[in-house]
């Protein structure tokens, strides 16, 4: 997560593997969370 001139930028991390494995994670520390629905 970055803060600049009032903006907040978030960059979740997504990995897609050839065997079908999918990894989705927040990279901003404990303030952020990504959950599957």
């Amino acid at each position, binding site marked *: *997560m970055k803060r600049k*001139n*009032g*903006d*907040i*930028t*978030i*960059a*979740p*991390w*997504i*990995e*897609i*593997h*050839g*065997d*079908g*494995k*999918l*990894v*989705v994670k*927040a*990279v*901003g520390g*404990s*303030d*952020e*969370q*990504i*959950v*599957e*629905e």
Partner: protein
Amino acid sequence: MTRARLHHVALFALVAACDKTVATPSGTNLLTQPAFTKTSMSDWTIGAPVGSATAVKKSYRWTSKGLGPDLKFSIAFEHGPSELVVAKPKASPPPNVETPRAVRIDLVDNTRWAVTAKCDDDLKVPLAVNPDGTAAYPKSV
């Protein structure tokens, strides 16, 4: 953040918000990548698909402590075997390799954030090693 050990496609969505931000409408297609041909090994490429693919679709909710409202997005992709094309094959020809295909990311629900997504155009080739310690072809990328 290092990418040296990634064995996959790497993607990430960028999200920004401030008072002047124009929210990206719910339902927006953020990314469509029909197929991958490049790999992180410059002389290896992905050739034609071999056989049928398996479809995967999942939805996610991003939440934060006070940064802004929740955001929902979906990821759909297919995966299946494809030809591994090697410019200079080893003694044996390369086997087919499991690859992701047809990656699509959609914004499902958003009220405040400006959202974009991008995707590396090459597949990260994992290090694969034979029992004797020599380099092997990967089975999946």
